[in-house]
């Protein structure tokens, strides 16, 4: 058995959570169903977890002005296929791009 594998089996039923937000290494529980296995196989990234953190630290009114612009409304609401596909919200680090609600 390769050493890497041994280490993994030694960790069964433990919660190995790494420090970064998207990545849960080895989330083994008794409810490790096939569906769960398949989803893990698709990607180890867990954006929903990061999303929970973002929600918790957010003040909902912030940046509303940006999402009330015509550009945004057209992008999100227009259904006739003529709207632009891609919206790019840009700004320096820390201006609150992640925390738009």
């Amino acid at each position: 058995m390769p050493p890497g594998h041994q280490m993994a089996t030694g960790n069964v039923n433990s919660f190995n959570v790494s420090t970064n937000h998207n990545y849960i290494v080895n989330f083994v529980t008794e409810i490790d169903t096939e569906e769960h296995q398949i989803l893990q196989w698709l990607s180890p990234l867990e954006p929903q977890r990061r999303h929970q953190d973002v929600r918790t630290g957010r003040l909902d009114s912030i940046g509303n002005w940006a999402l009330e612009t015509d550009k945004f409304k057209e992008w999100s609401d227009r259904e006739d296929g003529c709207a632009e596909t891609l919206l790019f919200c840009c700004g320096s680090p820390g201006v609150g791009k992640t925390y738009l609600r």
Partner: protein
Amino acid sequence: MIDRLCDRAGGKDIAVVGLYCDFLAQQEQSTANMLGAILKQLASRGSILKDIQVAFQKARKEYGGRGLQPSDLVEIIKKAIKSLSRVFICIDALDECTPQHRQELLQSLREIVRVSRNIRIFLTGRPHIENEIMKSFGKVVRIPLSPARGDIESYLKMRLSRDTDPYAMDDELRADIMRVILERTSEM
């Protein structure tokens, strides 16, 4: 953003998919893993899980379950999207993944968008990646974001009200903090 779109979608045939990029996780954020994370969020819908299951069983027999290639993932995502009236894909901090992965991800998204008009993509990042986005998509609608004074004020008030050491705080200190931070940020 994701919550706003989800609230509006309210059970309709609309999917909202999110992805967060992070400097600290560049290695795990390969193109395949990012596309996989997008597909994962679409997998709970419709019959697409069956297709993924088949691919999974097949991969298991070949070389101990190797992962799907980006091109395979793109094909399954295209299929998953067909049954939906609208799909919003929101990717935060695209500037934080490696240039190579970013390029591949943008190309894959472009490929997905090509087959369907019901997709909307929302990207955030620092302004310098706009050229790369242009290269893949040709056209970009841009919303430049800068902190509005009112936003900073309300955020500061919220943070001060959550201060964990209320005895060290008084009205004067609170006013000082507000004043100094607002002064500094207006110089940004």
